[in-house]
């Protein structure tokens, strides 16, 4: 767990400056500057710029724009024209005079030797903080090297403007021969190129620091350009302030280096607009030019990951909040603020895929989920329904059919738990096709264990994988044929010795007689997120779709950048709005109908009426009535019934004597449930059998509430840890459900009297 924190500290580039700012002598926050300019906030842009460079009127004319060479668009000769933007900020800001602050004077005296650009910058910054500043200049005027670089009428008014509210003492025509004659708490020597050093050298131990306490030097004297000189002056002011406050000469050296180098091909490029005039950019031109800036930041994670984007949290922030949630500082549970966030990760793996340094926030969240479960701090309600469903898949609905005559099948078809729940006929059809090509095949109905893994139930997960391993071993280790890539990924990770292949690859290889259901219709193949690891399956799915006559068009993100449909991680109980939003985002990615090869993707899309079909449905003959794209979605109860039906069908064919055992006689009066209530139950994750259990428990114990007006009975019972209330009425030979609802908190019976 601490590994992730260490990895973030070492490798995450979210806080690294963009390449342009990393080469700026002033470390100007170009992202923010461009952001202000883009929206026409010239005043804010100007203030940001002035605070960074001290003399905007000078810097905007003299800067040689190293940022342009570093800009991601420099290769296309389209670097952002930052100096033009700076000039536009000055021209269009409503007020470019400095602010006048009324602050108490600070009782420290600083001497600046040299009234050139560097000395002036240092003096200005310290004077604005109300230190007593004295500037010694050997000439009779200020400006130093600026005289040879700019016309006097340009730089002089700018210097005067910036000093207009500050009380700095200028001593012109005052050459300094020895620092000993200076009475000051700190000295900044900025005597210009080839100026007097007074024997000082940069110590390297801090910004502008000499080896002697309180003595600093920098600017053109130490070899900087005029821009670096101004930047040095500003940095020296910081270093001097630090020295005056805490007595140390160790202000960090200027370092805006970056490891972050965005890939220009991933950024939308607009060429620079042709200039209309010679002068300063108009407001519109400036906003358009700033609009070309991509404000580069290492933010692929928040851009692509639905979770981090919707929570507006970068991995570092996620880690901070999750760490305090797993190990709260207080013993009460009050600090577990990120519980729902932890339980909302779809575990699609996209965050790692898009991270330039492959940081795996998803794996961290899964680890954290496990920790929360170990601590009994994860609300049980988030996964109990799915775990019960998994218990059903690996228990009552599980089945092994070995059709191999020799006893050792070549293939073991593992359709996963969801396909049988969603469209059981497809499992039968898929197995049939497999048997036609390879009679030495077996079928295993069960679950891969993903629900337990997502629930953080590690022991249960291990047991489920173990169950799979036992069956697979007992069949002499056949190649496993997966219909669900989630199972494929799950077992590739946890049972790597089991060789696997997707059904789609086999079907594609076998060149089935093509059912031309597509008829030239345009469709998009929607890759399930685990297909990220299986390019060959993705290719096979596309090949099959083309063979079936579909004209495929790409989705904005697919293949190795496949996005989760919303079902992954089974987060919809923990965070229903989030899961819905993710599904809606995927639906809005394209108006085309989706061919999916994961039953979960199919079900979540169809539940929201998106035209979607399982690829197997499109390529295997037969199947359900109605159009390809508008197949119905089973309720949770139907999903179980489907799996029971599937098992029954297989038993009838292969083990008829066992099939009879499945025909359990009906006990008690049948419960009639209206379609609206079935839908309500489905939305509340209630199964028919749960509700029947409540009604039966009421009738058996004779304990319920009677509504004397309507004659209905109302009672509650627990199914798992959920308390379910059922209102029903007894009719002749049957019962009718009138209402049903459920809650997570438990009623503590027998405690209310004292």
């Amino acid at each position, binding site marked *: 767990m601490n590994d992730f924190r260490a990895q973030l500290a070492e490798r995450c580039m979210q806080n690294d400056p963009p390449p342009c700012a990393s080469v700026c002598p002033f470390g100007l926050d170009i992202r923010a500057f461009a952001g202000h300019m883009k929206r026409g906030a010239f005043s804010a842009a100007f203030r940001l710029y002035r605070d960074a460079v001290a003399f905007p009127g000078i810097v905007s004319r003299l800067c040689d724009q190293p940022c342009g060479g570093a800009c991601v668009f420099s290769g296309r000769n389209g670097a952002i024209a930052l100096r033009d933007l700076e000039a536009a900020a000055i021209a269009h800001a409503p007020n470019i005079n400095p602010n006048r602050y009324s602050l108490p004077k600070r009782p420290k005296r600083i001497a600046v030797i040299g009234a050139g650009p560097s000395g002036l910058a240092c003096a200005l910054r310290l004077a604005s903080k109300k230190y007593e500043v004295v500037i010694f200049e050997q000439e009779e005027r200020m400006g130093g090297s600026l005289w040879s670089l700019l016309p006097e009428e340009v730089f002089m008014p700018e210097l005067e403007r910036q000093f207009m509210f500050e009380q700095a003492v200028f001593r012109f025509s005052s050459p300094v021969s020895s620092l000993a004659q200076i009475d000051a708490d700190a000295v900044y020597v900025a005597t210009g190129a080839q100026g007097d050093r007074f024997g000082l050298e940069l110590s390297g131990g801090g910004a502008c620091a000499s080896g002697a306490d309180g003595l600093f030097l920098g600017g053109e004297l130490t070899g900087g350009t005029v821009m670096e000189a101004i930047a040095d002056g500003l940095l020296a002011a910081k270093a001097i302030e630090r020295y005056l406050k805490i007595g140390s000469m160790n202000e960090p050296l200027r370092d805006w280096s970056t490891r972050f180098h965005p890939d220009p091909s991933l950024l939308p490029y607009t060429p620079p607009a042709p200039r209309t005039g010679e002068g300063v950019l108009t407001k519109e031109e400036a906003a358009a030019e700033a609009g070309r800036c991509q404000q580069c930041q290492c933010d692929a994670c928040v851009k692509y990951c639905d979770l981090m984007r919707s929570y507006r949290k970068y991995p570092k922030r996620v880690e901070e909040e999750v760490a305090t949630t797993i190990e709260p500082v207080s013993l009460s549970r009050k600090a577990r603020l990120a*519980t729902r966030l932890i339980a909302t990760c779809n575990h699609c793996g996209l965050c790692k895929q898009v991270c330039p340094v492959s940081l795996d926030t998803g794996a961290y969240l899964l680890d954290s989920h496990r920790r929360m479960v170990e601590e009994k701090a994860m*609300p049980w309600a988030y996964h109990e329904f799915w775990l019960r469903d998994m218990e059903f898949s690996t228990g009552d609905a599980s089945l092994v059919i070995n059709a191999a005559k020799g006893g050792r099948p070549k293939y073991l078809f593992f359709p996963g738990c969801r396909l049988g729940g969603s469209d059981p006929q497809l499992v039968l059809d898929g197995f049939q096709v497999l048997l036609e090509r390879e009679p030495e095949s077996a079928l295993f109905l069960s679950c891969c264990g993903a629900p337990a893994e997502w629930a953080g139930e590690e022991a249960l997960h291990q047991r489920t994988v173990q169950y799979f391993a036992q069956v697979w071993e007992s069949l002499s280790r056949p190649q496993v044929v997966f219909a669900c890539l989630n199972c494929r990924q799950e077992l590739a990770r946890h049972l790597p010795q089991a060789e696997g292949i997707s059904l789609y690859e086999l079907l594609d290889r076998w060149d089935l007689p093509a059912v031309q259901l597509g008829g030239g219709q345009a469709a998009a193949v929607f890759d399930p997120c685990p297909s990220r690891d299986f390019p060959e399956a993705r290719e096979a799915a596309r090949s099959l779709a083309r063979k079936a006559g579909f004209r495929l068009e790409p989705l904005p993100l697919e293949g190795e950048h496949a996005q989760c449909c919303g079902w992954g991680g089974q987060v919809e109980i923990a965070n229903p709005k989030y899961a819905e939003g993710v599904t809606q985002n995927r639906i809005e990615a394209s108006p085309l109908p989706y061919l999916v090869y994961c039953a979960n993707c199919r079900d979540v899309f169809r539940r929201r009426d998106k035209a979607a079909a399982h690829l197997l449905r499109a390529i295997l003959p037969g199947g359900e009535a109605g159009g390809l794209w508008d197949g119905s979605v089973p309720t949770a109860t139907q999903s179980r019934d489907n799996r029971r039906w599937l098992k029954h069908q297989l038993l009838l064919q292969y083990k008829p004597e066992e099939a009879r055992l499945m025909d359990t006689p009906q006990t008690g009066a049948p419960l009639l449930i209206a379609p609206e209530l079935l839908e309500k139950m489905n939305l509340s994750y209630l199964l028919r059998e749960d509700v029947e259990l409540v009604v039966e428990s009421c009738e058996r114990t004779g304990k319920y*509430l009677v509504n004397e007006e309507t004659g209905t009975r*109302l009672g509650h019972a627990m199914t798992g840890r959920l308390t379910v209330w059922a209102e029903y009425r007894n009719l002749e030979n049957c019962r009718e459900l009138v209402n049903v609802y459920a809650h997570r908190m*438990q*009623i503590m019976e027998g405690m209310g009297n004292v």
Partner: protein
Amino acid sequence: MSDRPLICSTCRCPLEEKRVDFEYLGHTFFADAPRCPVCGQVYLSEELVKGRVAEVEMQLEDK
């Protein structure tokens, strides 16, 4: 449903507002709700369950 006359099936008496104790995620708390004054059978209306109960559950999960 809340204004309907509910009778406990075993004790045949109407319900009265009394203290009911609850537990969720290790937190215990109580509130007044209709109960049978004799055997203590509780009634929580759908309105209460979908409203306040769901709200409290959510708050406890996010604590």
